[in-house]
């Protein structure tokens, strides 16, 4: 069985036919041209598939696409573009918070949710907030640094 689902993706309305058992990560990647959200574990453990739904960080690997009917979905593509990077994306690049890059879009989206809720987080608050995102390369140090730098810049302190 399947059905049509309508939602907003990165600011644009989309309407897409999905199977009942289709997960958002697959709809985004295979039907809507989104490549940022990644398939890491598929069972909620790694955060590589993190997207924002109505501003909240959720795991697209554990979300049925039908559940986002009428909602706003934001991925890294909607946060910034290669020509016009979002401050968080730029900070990740500038602070070498990226090695293989597989985990990066997930971290960037989680960081975007954090900085909207808490524009001036402490290092501890950053570490706490990103604990559902795994990185197997960087050791987190530069990721935390990048998020703190982005926070400073966004709140006009840098």
């Amino acid at each position: 069985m399947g059905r049509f689902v309508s939602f907003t993706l990165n600011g644009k309305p989309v309407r897409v036919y999905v199977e009942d058992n289709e997960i958002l990560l697959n709809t985004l990647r295979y039907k809507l041209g989104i490549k940022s959200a990644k398939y890491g574990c598929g069972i909620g453990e790694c955060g590589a598939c993190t997207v924002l739904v109505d501003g909240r960080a959720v795991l697209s690997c554990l979300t049925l696409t039908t559940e986002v009917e009428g909602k706003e979905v934001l991925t890294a593509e909607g946060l910034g573009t290669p020509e016009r990077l979002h401050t968080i994306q730029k900070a990740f690049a500038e602070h070498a918070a990226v090695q293989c890059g597989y985990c990066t879009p997930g971290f960037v989206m989680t960081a975007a949710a954090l900085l909207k809720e808490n524009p001036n987080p402490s290092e501890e608050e950053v570490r706490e907030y990103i604990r559902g995102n795994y990185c197997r390369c960087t050791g987190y140090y530069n990721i935390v640094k990048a998020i703190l730098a982005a926070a400073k810049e966004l709140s006009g302190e840098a």
Partner: protein
Amino acid sequence: MTFKVSPGPKLDINKANTHILPPFTLIEPGSLKELLEVKAKYGEKAAILAGGTDLLVKMKLRILEPEYVISLKKVRSELSGIRREGDEIVIGAATLLRDIELNDSIMRLAPALFDAVIVMGGVQIRNMGTIGGNLGNASPAADTAPPLLVHSASVKLLSTSGERIVPLEEFFTGPGRTVMRPDEIIYEVRLKALGKGCGSAFMKIARTAFDLAKISAAAMICVEDGVIKEAKVAVGSAAPTPVRARSAEDALVGKAPTPETFLEAGKAARNDISPIDDVRSTAWYRRRVIAPLLHDVLQKALGRIGV
């Protein structure tokens, strides 16, 4: 020499990942009445989908393959919310863990529950997972259970044949099992707000910040004139279900709230648990660590009295 390049199989979107969902028919009831009707109709063949953080994982791992999945999506607002009713706090079954964390009356009136939700998963899991799902999944490691037990919680179940209120202590019957009938749903959770002179707390021991508990404990104590008047203790991941530790409670009431009393109570709790060796820990470790764990959680609850 030419190589023949195989075009490969056509990509089936639902098989694009290794963890794929088995097929099912999705039902999205538009009202509470309709929800109860479809649950009554399909019973055990249907699974309720709240946040999906337990259900979809189990389906991907083929632990569960329900024929029907009933989404709470359209009845969420009816099933969500936190409100005060006299000395009780009422939490709708579909209330997100994150909304419990962000609600400041929970921090004040049920601090043990606050302690539990903030250590559950990462922020994404708390933005998806619900309190009803945590109880419905009935894991011995369900982190909301010990705090709810010490706050004398009960669960309101609904079906087409009416409602019933079950004390949480009688709700779990084994790992993944509850007293819920196949036609019933969890409607709300009711717990007692902290009284005057009382404090509560929860702690868990886990391998990483993100992991399920090796063992967890919650405590609620009330102190009057330097003596413990009332005590409730509950332990998670140390028996087939989350359990009250009555021996620990007996060792507390009537005593002064000192570290010695707390450690004795912790040792007494060994009579209340039946831990096993499993993937997360061993029975030996759980039996040993329960004493200092209870000491710490009682100390934390004590520190909250009057604040």
